[in-house]
Structure formats: structure tokens, C-alpha cells
């Protein structure tokens, strides 16, 4: 029982990650694919921040009377990763806009038929 209480947080996060991953692989619409990528990445961020949590601790900003702080390093890493994520999203969406202009559709099974692309 204790084991479940200690780990349920991670298991839900794994479930969330896989939800995002599933959307990326199966979505037919390219915008939805990008949403899936974002869900996938956001869930990984929750994993990192869960790692950083210290029970009974406080946010890593020096406060009087506080003795326990949560770990600031994962916070820093995820700040960077969030920014990387939005950069990739912007590029992906820009590509989608161009694909729409070139093919007239953003559904994967439709433009696949239009070119003999490999």
C-alpha cells in the first residue's frame, strides 16, 4: 500500500506521457500531431518537477524560517525545456501553414496520395 502511495504520482504521469505519444503517432491532422507533441512534452515536464518535490519543503526562494527547499535544478532544466518546446511548436505550425498552402490540405492521408513522395 505504501508503495502505491509513494509511486502513484509517477504512474499517472507515465499515463499522461503515453496519451500524448499516442496522439502524435495516430493523429491524421498535422495540427493535432503538434498538440500531441505538446501534451507529450508537458507530461515529461511534470515528471521532472515531481522529482524535485520535497515533502514539507517550500519553493526554492530564500525565506525566513524555511529549512527545507525543493530542488531548484529540475526547475531550471524544465524552464529551458519549455522554451525549447515552444520553439519547436512555432516551427511545426509554420510548416503546417506552408503545407496547407502547397497542398490544400493538412490531413496526412490526403497529401500522401498527391505526390509520389517516399
Amino acid at each position, binding site marked *: 500500500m505504501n508503495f502505491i502511495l*509513494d*509511486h*502513484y*504520482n*509517477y*504512474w499517472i504521469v*507515465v*499515463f*499522461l506521457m*503515453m*496519451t500524448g505519444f*499516442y496522439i502524435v*503517432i*495516430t*493523429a*491524421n*491532422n*498535422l*495540427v*493535432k500531431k503538434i*498538440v500531441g507533441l*505538446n*501534451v507529450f512534452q*508537458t507530461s515529461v*515536464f*511534470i515528471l521532472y*518537477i*515531481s522529482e524535485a*518535490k*520535497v515533502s*514539507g519543503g*517550500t*519553493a*526554492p*526562494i*530564500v525565506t525566513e524560517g524555511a529549512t527545507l*527547499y525543493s*530542488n*531548484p*535544478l529540475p*526547475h*531550471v*532544466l*524544465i*524552464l*529551458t525545456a519549455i522554451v*525549447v518546446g*515552444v520553439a519547436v*511548436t*512555432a*516551427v511545426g*505550425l*509554420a*510548416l*503546417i*501553414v*506552408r503545407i496547407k498552402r502547397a497542398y490544400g490540405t*493538412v*490531413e496526412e*492521408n490526403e497529401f500522401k496520395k498527391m505526390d509520389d513522395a517516399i
Partner: protein
Amino acid sequence: MSDFIDLVLLAMLALTGLRIIFLKDLFAVVMLFGIYSFLTALIFINLDAVDVAFTEAAVGAGISTVLMLGTLALTGREEKESSHSSILPLIVVFITGAALIYGTLDMEPFGNPDNPIHKHVAPRYIEDSPKEIGLPNMVTSVLASYRGFDTLGEVVVVFAALIAVLSLLGVPKEGQQKAPASGLKSHQVLRVVAKLIISPIILFALYVQFHGDFGPGGGFQAGVIAAAALILYALVFGLPNAVAVIGPRFLKFMAAAGVLLYASVGFFSMYKGGNFLDYNKLAADPVAGQHYGILIIELGVGITVFAVMLSIYYAFGNQVERSNIQ
């Protein structure tokens, strides 16, 4: 109590995620993603990661969602039925998930202060950074100083996104004649409210920029907020008017200047005999040096992020206006 909130929020996230899988209305999908992002930000607050929560709310629920909506305006809001089977993806996802669950079995209990993750590197940040760097916000200390090279990389990633979007979509031309349909100018209430709140937003951005040493915030969040103020302006008064205020050419210079400002701090510390980005060498007193260094690099981050976010919005907004005219 905090564990209970955590559980409730995670359950809501799971529901949101599942709903996204089955929805075919993309507008709803994007909105649900915005909710997903906001819920995540709440979890981050609950887990004591205030800086991250701030950024997630501004970026995930803010910028990303706006860009996705802009794209939907161009591509249509219905997902069509796909023909390929969903068995293989399900197997791949199942195996990946099983591997991760297997990995969690050896994980230390959630929140235990004795976990190895809290033992080796982190104690120095917590115990010594207030003395070594002189800032109460440890996240800023680690971000800007101990791992300043990562943050330089992050700024360059943002810059790279600008290059990509410029090459794919181009930017609106300056001095274009004003399109009549542009913006929401006919809505008197919106105009007045927008005029009222734009300057406080910019003021708030400046506060976040320079207060990041003490509380949550910093260059990245400030840049996003300042960009949001101008995006609001562009939405209400039309893209050509916003372009007239700050043109895309100027933004391009700003984006480059922010990266160069950041790097120049590094080169100056090299000139002073230290390693790249060694702020201790910037002033006679190492702590003062750290302070100057962090102030300038955060400014560089803020400038680049502001310029890039606004340029990206211009590029998307321009596409939408073009398709509206046609």
C-alpha cells in the same frame, strides 16, 4: 492536503488528455490543450515550482495556444477520419509505457527529502548560492550563473525558431496600406479596455524582468509578457498598426542584439581572464560581479524573447490577414 490536490489535478489532466484523443473538432482540441497547460501550471505551483508554473502558463496556455489557433484559422477546424489501423501505434505506446512503469519500480518514494536526487549536486545550490551569487531566488542563480551556458543555448533555440519562421512564412511588409477588415476596431469597449491595460502589462513585464532575482520571474517570462501586450494591440487595432509601432526589421535586429548582449558578457569575462560566462571576474567583488552578469544576461534573454515572440506572431498574423483578403 497538498497530495490530495495533486491527485485531483492529475486526474483532471488524464481526463483532458483522453478527451483530446477522441475529439475531431480541432478548435476544441486546442482549447483543451490550453486547459491541459493551465492544469499543469497549477500542479507546478502545488509542487513548489513557481517559476516553472509562471512560464508554463505564459507559454503553453498563452503563446502556444494562440499560435495553434492562428494556424487553425488557416487550415480548418475538422480532423478527417483516418484510414490506417490503430493497432500498431497502440502496441508501441503500450510497450513504451510498460518500460516506463518498469523504470518507476526502483524510484525512491515521491517527495522524500533523502532521495539521491536531492543529495549530490542540489545542496550546494540551496546552501551556498545565496552567498556565492547573492540572490534569494535559487532558480535564477542556477539558471543564469551555474548553468548559464544552458540558458545561452535556450536563447539561441528561440533565435533559431525565428530563423525558421522567417524563412517559412516571411514577415508583413512595413508601410502597407491599412486593410479595412483588420483588427477589432469597431468594438468600442474592446478598444477602450485594450488602451487601459496595455501599458500596465508592459509595466508588469518590466517588473518581472528586474524582479526575477528576488521572486519568480526573469527575462524569459518578461519577454513573453511584453510580447503579449503588443499582440493584444495588434489584435484590437490591426496588424498594420502594430507593425507601424515596432517593425519586423527592427525586431530582427533586437533578436540578434539580445543574443549578442548575452554572449558579450561571456566574452568580457574571458577578456578579464576568466572562463566564458564567469561573472566573478566582472567586478572586483565576485558577488557584485555575479549581480551585474545576471542583470545583463537576463536583459539579453528578455530582448530576444520579446522580439522573437512578436515576430512569430507577426508572421502568423500576416498569413491570416492575407487569406482573409483573398
